[in-house]
């Protein structure tokens, strides 16, 4: 990792709480956290500890209370809704637990969806989509609808959708949480490859210690506090 000492994500003094009526529920407290570029990081911790919340904040789909999050040198906490949307479209790829494909679109069309926001021509879009689907090994399933694919295949389509815009950062919230062991293994291998061969920085939330082993670093979140003693592989 040549750039490993240059952080792609810098979090300073981050707090986040939710309001339920008059009750304020603190979720994240004074998080300070750097993620080097090209890293494959696993975020673990008990349910309700705020893993998804932290991931969403880094990916720019939720708002912080205080503190700053810098991604790729940009302070995303000061961006407007529209700026954030544009930023996400080009810089972040999302992988969810339940794949979250659009059911009425084919695998091809699902992967093409983020490209509709670009100025690419029809043909360029087609090339990108085919390349992405090839990378996840589903070039022969382009015209299938999500309901015609297995869970593992759907998740691979979702990964293709996440990488089709060539973002630097991939965020995954329990990407194997809904898959059997073999499919999960395939997905993890695919992610490891994207990290290894294409230098994608990956932040993955997981409950599964087995999945976490594929990451270089494991950080533990406990009651909204990031554990300082993280295990590091490699």
């Amino acid at each position: 990792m040549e750039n490993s000492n240059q952080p792609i994500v810098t979090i300073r003094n981050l707090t986040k709480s939710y309001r339920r009526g008059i009750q304020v529920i603190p979720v994240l407290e004074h998080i300070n956290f750097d993620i080097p570029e090209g890293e494959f990081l696993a975020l673990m911790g008990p349910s309700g500890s705020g893993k998804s919340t932290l991931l969403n904040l880094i990916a720019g789909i939720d708002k912080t209370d205080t503190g700053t999050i810098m991604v790729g040198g940009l302070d995303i906490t000061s961006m407007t809704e529209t700026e954030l949307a544009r930023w996400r479209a080009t810089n972040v790829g999302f992988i969810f637990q339940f794949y979250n494909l659009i059911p009425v679109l084919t695998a091809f069309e699902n992967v093409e969806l983020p490209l509709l926001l670009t100025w690419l021509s029809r043909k360029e879009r087609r090339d990108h989509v085919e390349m992405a689907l090839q990378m996840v090994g589903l070039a022969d399933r382009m015209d299938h609808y999500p309901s015609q694919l297995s869970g593992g295949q759907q998740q691979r389509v979702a990964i293709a959708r996440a990488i089709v815009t060539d973002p630097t950062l991939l965020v995954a919230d329990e990407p194997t949480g809904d898959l059997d062991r073999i499919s999960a293994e395939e997905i993890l291998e695919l992610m490891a490859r994207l990290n290894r061969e294409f230098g994608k920085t990956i932040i993955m939330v997981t409950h599964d210690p087995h999945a976490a082993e594929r990451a270089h670093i494991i950080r533990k979140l406990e009651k909204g506090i990031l554990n300082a003693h993280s295990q590091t592989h490699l």
Partner: protein
Amino acid sequence: MHILKLIFRNALRHKLRTALTILGITIAILAFGILRTLVNAWYSGVEASSSTRLISRNSISLVFSLPLSYKEKIRQIPGVKGVSYAIWFNGTYISEKNFIPNFAVEPKTFLELYPEYLLPEDRKTAFIRDRKSAIAGRKVAERFQWKVGDTIILKGTIFPGTWEFVLRGIYYGAERSADETQLFFHWNYLNERLKKTTPRRADQTGVYIIGIDDPDQAAEISEAIDKTFKNSLAETLTETEKAFQMSFVTMTQAIVTVIQFVSFLVIIIIMAVVANTMAMTARERIGEYAIMKTLGFGGWHIAILILGESLIITITGCVFGIILTFPTAEYFGKTMGSFFPVFSVSVITIFLDIAAAFFVGLLAAVFPTWRAVRIQIADGLRRIG
């Protein structure tokens, strides 16, 4: 792929729900169109009336007649081009159900004043020459399958007895608005019989029809006519043909207002139905909208998705509704032809149909769109799984 494709696929997602909503709109547009056409038909007599014709009647009521001797005096009033006269005969053909408006008229002057009733020249002369003849409009002739030369028998109501006529011609309307459902026969024929049976009713007419050159002078000429017969035994009330026709319509103005109100009510009801469909649809897809937002789509993309789907549904329903309006109107026109001489769908009605469909489609999508656009991504994603 285009975003339109996604809109179409979304619309087809719940086929039954979409189909039922479209059916609802189709029926609403059809009902709206027919009710509007009905209102138009109501006013068609007014529309068809000429602004160069005045009608003079007994100032007390239409029930009372005017002496024939007024004819010459009216003719002499400046601005008057021609005078004819007519009596509302109200004879029954076979049965009361077969309503045909029928009048005793002075044929020559009458046809001169009504150039919109077209008749071949030889038929016209045949009609004028034969004292016992009648002419009928195309629609009524078709309805009873009358041919020229047929004998038509009317049972008198106002004027008792049996009245026989030979059909000498069938007239056509020069314009669509012209009434083709009437029957006209000779005033003379009626008068001669009245002389024998009830002499005190003879030499009278129901109304005078007065042709004028300049519509702008209608008021002054009307006034001049009424002044001429002031303080005589039968005073006149003269007005334009339009105003005269209008006085029949206003009697039923309340009904027309109710029909108009109902036609708009139908649109409001269907709006509630479409709004409900769109609210259900958008609620189900909140998670998907959140995903699209995550991918970088903006609020207005989501708005286009929902609005587009809503409009596709309403416009489709509207198209079906319009297509069905024409045969339905024709059917109504046939079965109620005698009540509504003109029963045809106007261009304005079609425009109103389309406007209503757009209005419903847009308004029904407003609330779901607002909710979908406003929702926080993190909250939307939380609803999945």
